């Protein structure tokens, strides 16, 4: 097994794991101070819960066997997942299983933005287990599993635009609808800690190099190109948001810059293996404009997707999937007159949207009726903040009584 490739995949796995605390800060900064601990915990617990469940059954369900729709139980408990590989192999199956685990961790963490400031924590822990099993594992199998049907139709999702972002976004919509709007904030809220948002965005940008360039599963030219376009799309997304912010209000929102960067990163995720430097500018620009528009007008939507998971990860992800097909180099893109990839990616997107939304809706409906669970905290808990109510902690303790 190649030491250079292994070194890069170990590094990439660490980088992707680090994205989840990054997300915790990104989301944590966006909410009100009375919910910062809860918001951070929603991400952090994905590391704990999925980190365990993935090795016990998640990986096997997603990557076991050769089947169109779902894996099998061959790798239960990481049985037969080999840390080593022969001298000719670039990498062992275990390092890929680890790398994939990090994706399975961050995906449900992304969803939590939609239900921030009101979701019941206990229910969330249960939801994590079920959702990873019933929604994430199958879709991962469709796209990347041996024989998975989306892989089979020739769709191209390099690093998880459908599996991670669109999937999380549609689950977010279902969750936002079922959990209902937050109380008493007709005009939206200001981010309570802008530096945290930028810190989170910085960590995400940093970690995303592992996410995308690691998805090459090699330290080769594909990885190098993926690294480049990841950075470019992020830069272009941030720039687009700032310029739009400036043009419309005369001020440049830092939260907007961070959001634009993330939007660019989301959109380049499926495309990172197929587009070149100039294409990635197109991907980032489109992502910036589209997500900005949706964020701006999303209050017209009927649901309270608190931290705009749908706009950023849904619209950004859908755009990315289509943009992959538009800007792909090597004679397979729309620019080169080919529409096959576009159609394949369109089907992949549509299937992911449908499955994720419906299944998440069903899971949450059921959890809502389970005695002792339920989706939403009490009104007084919401008013007083989830930090005290659910975690017995205040984010910041600063008064003289301490």
């Amino acid at each position, binding site marked *: 097994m190649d030491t250079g490739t292994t070194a890069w995949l170990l590094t990439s796995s660490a980088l992707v794991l680090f994205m989840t605390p990054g997300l915790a800060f990104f989301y944590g900064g966006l909410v009100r101070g009375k919910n910062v601990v809860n918001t951070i915990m929603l991400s952090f617990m994905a590391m704990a819960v999925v980190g365990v469940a993935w090795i016990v059954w998640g990986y096997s369900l997603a990557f076991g066997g050769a089947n169109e729709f779902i894996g099998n139980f061959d790798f239960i408990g990481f049985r037969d997942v080999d840390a080593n590989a022969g001298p000719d192999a670039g990498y062992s199956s275990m390092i890929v299983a680890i790398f994939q685990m990090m994706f399975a961790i961050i995906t449900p963490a992304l969803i939590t933005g939609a239900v921030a400031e009101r979701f019941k924590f206990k229910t969330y822990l249960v939801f994590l287990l079920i959702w990873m099993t019933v929604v994430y594992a199958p879709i991962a199998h469709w796209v990347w599993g041996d024989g998975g049907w989306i892989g089979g139709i020739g769709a191209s999702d390099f690093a998880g635009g459908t599996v991670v972002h669109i999937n999380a976004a549609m689950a977010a919509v279902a969750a936002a609808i079922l959990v209902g709007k937050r109380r008493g904030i007709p005009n939206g809220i200001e981010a309570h800690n802008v530096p945290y948002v930028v810190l989170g965005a910085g960590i995400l940008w940093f970690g995303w190099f592992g996410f995308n360039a690691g998805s090459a599963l090699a330290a080769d030219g594909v990885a190098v190109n993926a690294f480049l376009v990841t950075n470019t799309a992020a830069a272009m997304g941030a720039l687009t948001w700032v310029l739009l912010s400036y043009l419309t209000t005369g001020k440049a929102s830092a939260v907007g810059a961070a959001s634009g960067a993330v939007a660019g990163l989301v959109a380049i995720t499926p495309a990172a293996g197929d587009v070149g430097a100039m294409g990635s500018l197109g991907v980032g620009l489109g992502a910036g404009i589209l997500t900005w528009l949706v964020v701006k007008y999303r209050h017209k939507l009927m649901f309270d997707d608190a931290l705009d998971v749908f706009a950023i990860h849904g619209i950004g992800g859908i755009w990315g999937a289509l943009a992959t097909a538009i800007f792909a180099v090597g004679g397979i893109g729309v620019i080169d007159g080919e529409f096959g990839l576009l159609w394949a990616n369109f089907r992949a997107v549509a299937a992911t949207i449908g499955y994720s939304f419906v299944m998440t809706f069903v899971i949450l409906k059921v959890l809502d009726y389970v005695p002792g669970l339920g989706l939403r905290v009490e009104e007084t808990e919401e008013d007083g903040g989830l930090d*005290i109510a659910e975690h017995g902690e205040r984010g910041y303790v600063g008064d003289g009584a301490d």
Partner: protein
Amino acid sequence: MIKIEAIVRPERVNLVIAALEDAGCTGYHLFNITGAGQQRGVEVFTGRGAGTVVRTALPKTLISTVIPDDMKDSVIEAIVGAARSAGDGAIGDGKIFISKMDEVVRVRTGESGDIAL
């Protein structure tokens, strides 16, 4: 002139302010405080998060507004209306303190008296 100091739940502040404005208040200011009354605290974690302790004092917001004498009753009513929890109210809904304010001066113009409020 009188000064009204209303201690309310933080989550009620926007409602109370709106009510104050409806009642004709021209200005106010807010303090973040920590306080205890009959509502005696919540359980919080200490140390590394395995032990807990009861914190007596809770975060509250103090809204201070200086008004002409004659607005007193309507302002108090407005605050109570906006700050009281649904139903019969709940412990911790807050308190309103009223005291005399002798004078006010507007820095910009040097005006004083009710006109400066």
